[in-house]
């Protein structure tokens, strides 16, 4: 019987960005060729640092350090010469396509990889891989016109085009709707069938549990193999705040919207009612118009026709302070939300608008926020940044909070905490509107769900919506079995 090659051997004693402050300690792992590793861990636990360490990026590019032993096939990525050879062996897809795409068109993006590696017949190969990933018709389109799912497919295409042996996918389903996630899953299944080695880091492990050969968790600086991670969320953990449907707070009727004169309609007659204190989810595929709807509700975009009322008034007719009392918009990317140099100044600004005394506010804050008062909000970890935006949104005291993809990038523990937070906010009379395609939001938080399809918004039962979002991924496994 042919003995399998070792794709990855790791024995890291310590690794981190600054000496004396290790992010990883005593990490040991061996991955055989053709195995799929599912790597889990809380936000900020060191999953990305692990990827940076095993690829040699940490010590060769980021001035960090790695003490120990790493072999990718027969290459030592910690040595400068080995580090130079690494791209021939690996294909990497980063969590955010925004942080990966360097060229202006899909064709150029794929060619960039091939030209870097001096691969012959680059043009032909690039066309072929784009066709395979369903992007041939958009090969020369501006990448900014692609949907989120298409951008993710482009990242996959440009990382597989040179046919590497090992693939590293950092949260490949983050920000993707279930249809996009099922596509990613299909590609990973195909890589596995071809005998390629795959490392997947995820916050939504359920997608990859069935195909993973090994599961590892990074927690408390170290890596443990074959462990379950995070406590299981059950509907009992969240008590849904059912309300008497008396006070309607958001009212949309026959709203139409497009971004420019010659652009197609994004919303073609959207109607929805939301009652005070309800937790409402708006679902739909990437590019369906969820963010647009959220921005219309928040008074940031004005529809071309139709009626919009937030607590009885058209949002764009309100003065900024009046609008803020009614509704606030929390974007998916937390960095956009901050306007001050320190956490304390951010909270003081929000408290001023929310007419809260800062001393009183401090008593109700999470302890970690108190420790970070003098720090820049931009320097917090991703999970902390997200949490700070939620805290600030609540301090403003707006009656409606529109969250764009609130659970993207949050680990299961923080996600669970967020659902509890939502329940408390809802009890306080706040109405959270969640623009999402995360099925967990529907399972454990939402009182009502609206779906956007082809520009039309309609209410859908919570159970039905869960089925709709789970179907693409389940079909993926069904196809595999059949």
């Amino acid at each position, binding site marked *: 019987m042919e003995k399998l090659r070792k794709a990855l051997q790791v024995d890291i004693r310590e690794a981190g960005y600054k000496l004396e402050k290790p992010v990883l300690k005593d990490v040991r792992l061996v991955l055989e060729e053709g195995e799929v590793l599912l790597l889990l861990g809380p936000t900020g636990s060191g999953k990305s640092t692990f990827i940076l360490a095993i690829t040699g990026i940490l010590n060769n590019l980021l001035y960090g350090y790695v003490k120990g032993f790493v072999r990718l096939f027969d290459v030592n990525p910690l040595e400068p010469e080995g580090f130079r050879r690494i791209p021939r062996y690996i294909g990497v897809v980063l969590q955010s396509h925004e942080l990966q795409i360097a060229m202006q068109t899909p064709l150029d993006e794929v060619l960039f990889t091939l030209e870097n590696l001096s691969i012959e017949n680059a043009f032909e190969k690039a066309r072929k891989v784009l066709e395979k990933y369903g992007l041939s018709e958009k090969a020369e389109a501006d990448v900014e016109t692609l949907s989120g799912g298409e951008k993710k497919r482009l990242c996959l295409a440009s990382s597989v085009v040179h046919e590497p042996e090992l693939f590293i996918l950092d949260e490949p389903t983050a920000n993707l709707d279930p249809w996009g996630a099922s596509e990613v899953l299909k590609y990973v299944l195909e890589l596995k069938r071809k005998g390629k080695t795959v490392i997947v880091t995820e916050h939504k492990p359920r997608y990859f549990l069935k195909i993973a050969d090994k599961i590892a968790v990074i927690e408390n600086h170290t890596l443990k193999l074959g462990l379950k991670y995070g406590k299981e969320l059950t509907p009992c953990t969240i008590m849904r705040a059912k309300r008497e449907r008396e006070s309607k707070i958001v009212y949309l009727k026959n709203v139409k919207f497009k971004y420019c004169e010659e652009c197609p309609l994004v919303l073609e007659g959207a109607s929805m009612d939301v009652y005070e204190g309800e937790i409402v989810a708006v679902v739909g595929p990437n590019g369906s118009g969820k963010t647009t709807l959220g921005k219309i509700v928040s008074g940031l975009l004005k529809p071309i026709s139709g009626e919009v009322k937030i607590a009885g008034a058209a949002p764009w007719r309100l003065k900024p302070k009046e*609008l803020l009392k009614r509704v606030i918009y929390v974007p998916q990317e937390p960095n956009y939300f901050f306007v001050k140099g320190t956490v304390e100044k951010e909270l003081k600004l929000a408290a001023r608008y929310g007419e809260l005394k800062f001393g009183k506010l401090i008593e109700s804050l999470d302890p970690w926020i108190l420790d970070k008062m003098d720090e820049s909000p931009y320097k917090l970890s991703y999970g902390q940044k997200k949490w700070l935006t939620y805290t600030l949104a609540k301090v403003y005291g707006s009656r409606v909070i529109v969250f764009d993809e609130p659970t993207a990038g949050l680990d299961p523990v923080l996600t669970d905490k967020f659902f509890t937070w939502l329940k408390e906010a809802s009890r306080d009379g706040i109405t959270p509107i969640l623009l999402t395609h995360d099925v967990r939001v529907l399972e454990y938080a939402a009182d009502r769900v609206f779906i956007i399809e082809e520009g039309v918004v309609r209410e859908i039962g919570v159970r039905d919506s869960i089925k709709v979002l789970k179907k693409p991924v389940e079909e993926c496994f069904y196809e595999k079995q059949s």
Partner: protein
Amino acid sequence: MRNKANPSVLFLYGLFLTILAFALRKIEPLIFSALLNMSIGLILGFKRFRFLIAAFLLSLVGVAVNAIIFAGGEPIYQLGPLIIRSKAITGFIEVSLRLALMLSATLIFSSLTNPRDLLRSLESELGLPKQVSFTVSLSLRLLRIFEADIREVQAVRKSRGLRTIPLTPSGWSSFLSPLLSIGLERGRWIGIAAELRGFSLRKSKKTCLKLGLLDFLIFTLILVQIIVFLMF
């Protein structure tokens, strides 16, 4: 013959205009170059880079305030405590024209090329180091994403009850901080992604500068502006 401008020629032209913006001392050739190139730049890039034009117009306010406060010369107009001196007018016009020249260089350069063509051309035809070529070409890509970032920051500012276009220095600081933070993060990760895709292994073959009709037109423009410069 090529029907597109050669990215290296465009790069050289952009460099030429930037040098002109700093080097021209006399106002007449500066007016000529600024008007000529601004017209071309606006025709090519008005639709796509409106935010750059808006930023230019905003910067003129700063130029005007600076000229009124610091310029000397004879008083020519008084409005209450505010005295406008002769050099404030000439100073304002001169600095505005220099900024206009730099803006037009950006508009022309960004409108007529794309990151990959530019990267290949700078490496192989001009022989620039790949790191420099990649940085320049990446700036083209980031310029286009930057507009989307600005829109998002403005939306959030409006939602948080702040001005979408700030009026005070601290307002500008709070406006620019998220843009800088996101830009730095993006630059860092695109660099890492490029390294993981073999950028350090990239080799370029030296080739001759291939010129087309548009390139000759650009060289003619350079020549005309040099002649105007020498005339004055």
